[in-house]
């Protein structure tokens, strides 16, 4: 188990370094940052001055190492537009985004896992087909359009839920549904496939031969084995949700990291964008690690790897 842990941590670190290098290089390659910082109507001398002031005239590796050192000490630079530290900007907005992501994931799991199990219990039944249609529907519908539909039906017509802002938890219901629904189809189909396979396995027959009740057979013996691939997928989907929150937060006027990313992209506020990309990557990597650890707990065979 310790070997497994060390291996996974090393892998996560390696991915983090790679992502930081790629992110750094991509941002430098996406245009002359000095021009963007100097602003409209700046002269060549102004731009040159900016280059020197920010150190853009030095070799890339040097810039990277310096940036990395600062980043590790928590200094993500200053936003050109807001003129406040990037770390502060993100820290203010991260709780909103994380809450939205978590609620979306809970919604997605709470809908898709029971549906997947039920569909697997009676393959090709009416329920199975209904679940499949729900999945196809979710996969096919763009989340921004689904979000607008929700606003129209639940907010404008039904007047059941607030359509924007962060006043209460109720404000998060619609965004979480809009964001979570997108992840539902994949999780549901994978749960179904896993359960169908596991239910046909010999150890389920053994569990029944022991005289265990159906509930115990299903939830103790079958589900634990069936959700192993689902855990990895859910982590990936959570990552997608964080990026999907850029659109959803804008629609529902939630002041989260997604909205910040949207504003900063419009204003070419590169330091902020870079900070957000890095933060999202780190969250993503941590999630993957968490999923691996959870799977190792679920399946003892993984612990050896």
């Amino acid at each position, binding site marked *: 188990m310790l070997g497994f842990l060390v291996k996974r941590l090393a892998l996560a670190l390696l991915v983090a370094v790679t992502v930081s290098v790629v992110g750094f290089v991509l941002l430098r390659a996406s245009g002359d940052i000095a021009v963007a910082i100097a602003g409209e109507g700046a002269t060549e001398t102004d731009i040159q001055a900016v280059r020197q002031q920010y150190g853009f005239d030095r070799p890339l590796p040097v810039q990277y190492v310096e940036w990395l050192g600062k980043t590790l000490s928590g200094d993500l630079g200053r936003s050109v537009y807001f003129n406040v530290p990037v770390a502060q900007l993100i820290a203010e907005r991260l709780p909103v985004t994380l809450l939205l992501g978590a609620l979306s994931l809970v919604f997605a799991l709470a809908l898709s896992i029971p549906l997947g199990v039920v569909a697997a219990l009676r393959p090709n039944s009416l329920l199975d087909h209904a679940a499949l249609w729900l999945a196809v529907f979710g996969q096919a519908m763009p989340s921004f359009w689904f979000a607008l539909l929700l606003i129209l039906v639940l907010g404008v017509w039904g007047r059941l839920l607030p359509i924007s802002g962060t006043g209460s938890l109720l404000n998060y219901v619609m965004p979480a549904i809009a964001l979570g629904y997108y992840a539902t189809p994949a999780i549901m189909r994978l749960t179904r496939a896993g359960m169908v396979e596991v239910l046909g*396995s*010999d*150890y389920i*027959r*053994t*569990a*029944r*031969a*022991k*005289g*265990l*009740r*159906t509930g*115990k057979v299903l939830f103790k*013996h079958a589900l*634990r*084995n069936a959700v192993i691939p689902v855990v990895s997928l859910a982590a990936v989907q959570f990552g997608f949700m964080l990026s999907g929150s850029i659109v959803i937060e804008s629609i529902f006027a939630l002041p989260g990291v997604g909205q910040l990313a949207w504003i900063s992209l419009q204003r070419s506020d590169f330091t902020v964008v870079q900070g957000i990309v890095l933060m999202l990557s780190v969250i993503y990597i941590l999630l993957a690690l968490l999923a691996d650890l959870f799977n190792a707990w*679920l*399946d*003892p*065979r993984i612990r050896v790897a």
Partner: protein
Amino acid sequence: MSGGMSPGMGETPLLAVEDLRVDLPLEQGTLHAVRGLSFEVGRGETLCLVGESGCGKSLTSLAVMGLLPRRAKRSARRLSFDGQELLGLSERRMAALRGNRLAMIFQEPMTSLNPAYSIGDQLEEALLCHRRVGRRQARERAVHLLERVGITAAGRRLGQYPHQLSGGLRQRIMIAMALMCGPELIIADEPTTALDVTIQAQILHLLLELKREMGLALVLITHDLGVVARVADKVAVMYAGEIVESGSAVEIFGNPRHPYTRGLLSCVPVPGRTRPGEPLGSIPGIVPSLVGSLEECGFRERCALAQAACRRPVPLHRLEAGRAVRCVLADPAGAPA
């Protein structure tokens, strides 16, 4: 084992199966996998169900346990355990019997244990779901039985997972699991087929020793006639979903009446029956399709002694005590001597 082990007339057999049928609906039609099977097993008795692959042996055992796949249809005139009718029993009531008073051991030890749970958990669970006992007692019982089935360092094994153990060990664990509640009947479906030859004999010995010691009744499903000759009280030879011949082991081996049984016996060396140097036989042809109705002797096309009467349904002729043969040649009324 002496003949005195057989139950006397009038005594309730532990397991009584009458006219058991298992049908599997397929796209091409209905597969009649088990076609009117009848047999009885008395307390402490060993019945061997013998036959080649696909003759319906495994489905028969699953049908008795109520573990058939959902699409399979089971019917019977009677299917009773210790006088209690199992047909129409609710899943809840059936689950209360399974693993408790009748247990099963499967053919595939490598895949029959749940990879996600420790050996101890899976063993203890078998007792905990039927008896009002604590974890500690269940654990003690598990250790005791693991030692009993010949597993060393039993206490340490409880914490191990299936993937850490060999096939032979896993099958010993499956046997221990079947014994957790002290069942009266064990159905063992080819329990040694998937194992190495050297391990096969050990496992079989173990099973027989435990059976004798605990007074269990055993239904042993096998295609290994050498095994049957050593262990069976009664033998039922299955072919194409039917019992073609049944009787005491001594009679079946000493005086096989059905051409299929004779063919089967000629295919394998049986201690005391096959002379050294004598070539072994084989049965030509293939098993008939059981999709749709089969209104004739299933063995007719492979039988050297086939005659016109074989094209009609052949009833099971009951001969002297406990002996039955499904062959026109065995008909005491009409057969030429």
